[in-house]
């Protein structure tokens, strides 16, 4: 029998890894992956609590999160491609013109 807290801690660790990726990675695609990782961590918490309270609505939320993630992936990649087309780079440190 696995305590529910294990799952939650696991999701916390995954989420932290996502945030860390966002902080330290320079490739915009990798950063995007880190976002997906965070979303997955959140899904894990949803599923965990759904399993604990025997409530299906948690799964519904997971479903919606996935849908949003897919949509975000589509738009995000379109943006990445547009940026790459103009800036010829995927390094976010080089894409920093939006400032005063």
């Amino acid at each position, binding site marked *: 029998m696995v305590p529910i807290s294990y799952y939650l801690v696991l999701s916390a660790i995954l989420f932290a890894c996502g*945030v860390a990726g966002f*902080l330290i990675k320079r490739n915009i695609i990798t*950063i995007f992956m880190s976002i997906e990782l965070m979303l997955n961590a959140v899904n894990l918490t949803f599923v965990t609590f759904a399993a604990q309270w025997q409530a299906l609505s948690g799964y519904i939320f997971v479903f919606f999160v996935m849908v949003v993630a897919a949509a975000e992936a589509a738009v995000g990649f379109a943006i990445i491609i547009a940026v790459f087309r103009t800036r010829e780079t995927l390094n*976010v*440190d080089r894409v*920093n013109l939006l*400032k*005063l």
Partner: protein
Amino acid sequence: MTLNLWLIPVLPAAGAAINGFFGRRFSNKMVSAVALASTAASFAWALLAAIRLLGMPADQLPYIERIGVWLRSGDFVVEYGFYLDHLSMIMMLVVTGVGFLIHVYSVGYMGHEGGYYRFFSYLNLFMFFMLTLVLADNYLLMFVGWEGVGLASYLLIGFFFLRDSAANAGKKAFIANRVGDFGFLIALFLLVKHFGTLQYTDIFHKVAEFSPGIESGAGLLTAIALLMLVGATGKSAQIPLYVWLPDAMEGPTPVSALIHAATMVTAGVYMIARSNAIFSRSTTALAVVAIIGCLTSFFAATIGITQTDIKRVLAYSTVSQLGYMFLACGVAAYSAGIFHLMTHAFFKALLFLGAGSAIHAVGGEQDMRKMGGLKKYAPYTFWTMLIATCAIAGIPGLSGFFSKDEILWQAFSSPHGHWAFWLLGITTAFMTSFYMFRLLFMTFFNEYRGPVAAQHTSHEAQPHAATASAEHAGHTHAVPPPAPPTNAHDHGGHGEPHESPWAMVVPLVLLAVLSVIGGYVGVPKALHGGNHIEHFLAPVMPTITAEAAGTAHGGAHPEQEQSQAAEDSSLELTLTGVSVAVAFAGLGLAWLLYVKRRDLPAKIANSLGGLYTAVLNKYYVDEIYGAAIIGPLIAFSTRVLWRGIDATLIDGSVNSGAQGVRELGDSLRHQQSGNIRSYAGWVTAGAALVILYMVWMGTR
């Protein structure tokens, strides 16, 4: 049955709107067509309404036409509607009629000016507001018209706004009127406070319910009346607020004729007459009105004697005539006041138009010393001017004679009257006849003293030279040998003085006719005429005889009335004789000084010395005002309000705030590095703080 009174003001408004919005694209003919059509239609409808009103049975009067509710707050309701009784009927007819004639005149007079459509749009606008003022059925709507005519007068005085003097005159008029309107407004507040309504009928009934004893509510009524009087002095140019009217002569002459002689300036008189129910209840107020009117008339007349600018002379005479009307109202002889108002509208409008025609004749010159001998150049103008002068001077048989005599007689005889009033009045009458004939002689008699080839591109010597028509451009290269003006309306390109076009002459003639016959509606009983106008106005305002002789019209004590009437008439006859004598004396003196011995006036002026210069400079009233009121006001506004409060306090706080925000932004700006990861760092730190806070909240 409905008279559709609303049409009467709305028609000129429509004209104003059309000309104002689209006039720029119209041709001059089109513009004048619109303006004249709207005014004429309004006049025609007014006539129709008047006839149908006379057909009404007395119990239906006053005829009130309610349009709807304007504003409603709590139980205080103001409707807008129109109120037609004999008083407003006379005013309405005068305004529309004279207004129409002056429109016709303006077509000829303004023909060469720039902003033609603008002029007529303003003129129609004025008509609209004036009719609103006259026909309003409550004080608030009247106040709307009151302010509106002020606005129109401001616009028209400053019509040649490129000229500083005109613009300043406009402002002066506006501000002086503001002072008066302030009083009027407070009077309205008092009315709302104590009567809870502004409808004429309700107020008059409530006032009538006061016990006849003057004491009850006398203080209140006196206050209201005096505040109204302040407003009236502003609008009708009485002491102390008369100073704007002479400067208002900067406007085009038709404007001076219409607004500053015939109609607008009489609004004050109309207002007092309309509120006679209130005024009659307060002897104090009546006395003040009478004194102010009396002094104003005398005072302005003295100034008028010395002026040399033809329009200024007329302006001061207007002030003094208005003073007469106030005197009449002051002695509770409202009908006499209205009577004089009517006749004065006729002949003073005629005088102004004639003066305008004379100015037109000499191509823009306004100084009488540079005129003269126009009799042979502009015969129509001369004869009409002669009639008008006789009328105002009180030569028997003309309109001015009857009305002015009526006022003088009432000032002497009415229970509110006093012999001093009569004395000042008769002196004023003498001076009036003197300076009017002086004007006539200086302008039309002797030889022409002006420059032959007039360099003016237009009458007002205003800088619209570019817009002047080819005719006036013709003035500049004119041939010196003057040809006698064969055809009066020929407006040809020679520098000679010349008669004005028909468009200007016809109104002169019509007004002349009116100034002659206008008086016969009010021939006093003493001259074996039934004082029609007095009876006519009786339902609106109680006549003095009625008050004095109890129920005179009821004919309760015929023989008493007979005797009363008999002695009255004998006394009245003698006074009439005196005034006639005075009028002719003025005529004679003027003839002596300005036709026979033309060196005398200078001598007299020198002998008088300081007094003369003082009078010539209008008693330095403007200067005194400037020093006493305007100067300190400007100083206060500049030092305290502007430099102190506005610049230092408000601007300072705003600017310093903006400065601080900018500096803060400058320091924070560098955090926006454009690097996503640093933003992520901020977000992470913030999220960590939020988590800590929530945990802390949860754990304690």
